[in-house]
């Protein structure tokens, strides 16, 4: 198994499909980010671990306001409805879960999927290699999808709360 088993275009296609089905209703809302990457204010990070012959982690990062809007879209809430921290984390974690689950299905001899976790920092993974980095634009705002390849015993999570 190589660290390059996960293809950039496949990851983008999965993310687009997840957003089209769960969030937007059409495929055209999640595009490659153009230009320099801005700093994310109040980042929200959701990730899910993949355990098996190919072990790694799918990580989604966006800003708090964007995560709130994603939760509203996912739950069909009006734009001015308040989103609780619990709902925000659950919704963003579920998006990471579905992205990770579909990523797993691409792998030869896929193993098991961990439960989604959400935090405010990208979790550390000792010795891991980032194999894909996709800065994307959702409604003009930055959302990053990263895929990490890691030794199975390094997949102990830190910083999550779900």
């Amino acid at each position, binding site marked *: 198994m190589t660290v390059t088993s996960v293809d950039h275009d496949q990851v983008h296609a999965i993310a687009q499909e997840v957003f089209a089905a769960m969030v937007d209703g059409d495929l055209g809302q999640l595009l490659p980010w153009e230009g320099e990457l801005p700093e994310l204010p109040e980042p929200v990070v959701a990730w899910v671990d993949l355990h098996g012959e190919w072990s790694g982690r799918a990580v989604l990062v966006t800003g708090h306001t964007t995560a709130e809007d994603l939760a509203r879209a*996912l739950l069909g809430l009006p734009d001015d409805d308040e989103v609780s921290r619990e*709902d925000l984390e659950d919704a963003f974690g579920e998006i990471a879960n579905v992205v990770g689950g579909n990523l797993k299905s691409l792998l030869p001899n896929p193993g098991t999927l961990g439960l989604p976790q959400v935090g405010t920092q990208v979790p550390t993974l000792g010795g891991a290699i980032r194999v894909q980095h996709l800065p994307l634009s959702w409604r003009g705002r930055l959302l990053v999808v990263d895929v990490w390849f890691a030794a199975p015993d390094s997949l102990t999570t830190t910083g999550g709360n779900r």
Partner: protein
Amino acid sequence: MRALVIDDSRTMRRIVSGALEKLGFETIQAEHGRAALDHLEAGERVDLCCIDWNMPVMDGLTFVTEVRANPAWRAITLMMVTTESEHGQIVRALAAGAHEYLIKPFTPDAIRDKLDLLGLVALEETA
């Protein structure tokens, strides 16, 4: 008709329940397989269970196996609703006793199509 929606994500429980309610189902929810079994053991009557695979406490496959082991619950239709999309996983779930399999992400139309296949759409969809 009544449906039991089993998923550790409250977001997904709301999405699935909302889609089912538009199709005329009354819904109840559980956050994992053990909580769902508690509903059934308490005598809740349900026609359909929509079941996530990966959950804490009791996963969806174990729940399916437990339900199928009890003859009193054999009329309940079991549909997996999960990100587990590998062929081997689908075969495992169907072999354990699930009737249908819906892969996340899905659209409300996909739920309706699956329920149509199962003969379980109760009402015309409401707005």
